């Protein structure tokens, strides 16, 4: 009975999703040349964003980005699920040999610089190459360095999953706020400011900062899970 209800609900949702996706882009501004001219023109005139790729990824194709972030989340969750049984001794990493003092001092020195570079990349995602995904990965690389150099360096899974869920929920909330204010998912509803300013581009920097935090938390958790995997 319960399964029947679930199947029925899924069928209804699938029908409506399919129905609405069939109409997608029918009454939009699609012209004979495709959408590239529309994107290139609107990026400068309406969104005032210097990096066209960012405006496409976060604003025009924001729904796709949500899908990508979900894929990454599912991959991290699946890996954690597979390795979960073996993860009894959290915090006891199996190391072949302890790292040398030079490596320890060097990674302590490099860690803040790497994290700062990652934060710079995702905060300036709308101005320079890069963005949330790239910046988040760079931050995760910094944590990877610390995890490899110090065998007692640990990150809290609770904090990581909190950051992850917080960023994900706020991404979706910003999308729905755009729907509520403007009409489409992730439509810009904040003032765009002047071009090439740090505070410009409406919701694009905010969404990219959220994506950056989410990706950094996910990848750090993934590495931590793999590193702490102990054989029975």
């Amino acid at each position, binding site marked *: 009975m319960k399964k029947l209800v679930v199947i029925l609900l899924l069928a209804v949702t699938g029908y409506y999703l399919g129905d609405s996706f069939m109409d997608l882009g029918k009454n939009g501004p699609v012209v004979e040349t495709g959408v590239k001219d529309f994107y290139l023109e609107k990026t400068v005139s309406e969104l005032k964003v210097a990096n066209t790729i960012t405006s496409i990824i976060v604003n025009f194709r924001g729904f796709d980005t949500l899908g990508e972030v979900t894929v990454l989340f599912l991959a991290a969750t699946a890996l954690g699920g597979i390795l979960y049984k073996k993860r009894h001794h959290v915090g006891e990493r199996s190391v072949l040999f302890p790292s040398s003092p030079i490596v320890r001092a060097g990674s302590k020195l490099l860690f803040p610089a790497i994290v700062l570079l990652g934060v710079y990349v995702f905060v300036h995602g709308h101005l320079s190459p890069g*963005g949330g995904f790239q910046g988040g*990965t*760079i931050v995760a690389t910094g944590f990877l360095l610390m995890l490899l150099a110090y065998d007692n360096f640990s990150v809290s899974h609770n904090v990581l999953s909190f950051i992850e869920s917080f960023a994900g929920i706020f991404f979706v909330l910003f999308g729905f706020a755009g729907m509520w204010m403007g009409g489409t998912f992730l439509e810009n509803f904040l003032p765009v400011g002047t071009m090439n300013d740090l505070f410009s581009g409406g919701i694009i920097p905010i969404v990219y900062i959220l994506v950056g935090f989410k990706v950094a938390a996910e990848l750090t958790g993934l590495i931590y899970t*793999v*590193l702490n995997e102990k*054989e029975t």
Partner: protein
Amino acid sequence: MMFIILVFFLIILMVGAAIYAIVQKDLLYAVIATGVISLILSALFLLLQAPDVALTEAAIGVALTTIIFIITIRNTVRHEDDFKDRDDLKSAVK
């Protein structure tokens, strides 16, 4: 012209590294070779005016994937000849 020569040189290096990764029996060297492929690919992306993709490739391909493979090798076996079938692999795992 110089640009095309440079791009082709990098592509040939990439193919060479890929072949090395396949024929190498020491899996650690093979993983390093795949990291080299990602590094050259990221340089190629930069040359072909795609800095966003180059950043992603550099962070994911060179750092994260390589490290995860190295951790896996540390927990299993290093040489390809050390195991012949599944049971052998299971017993080789520490």
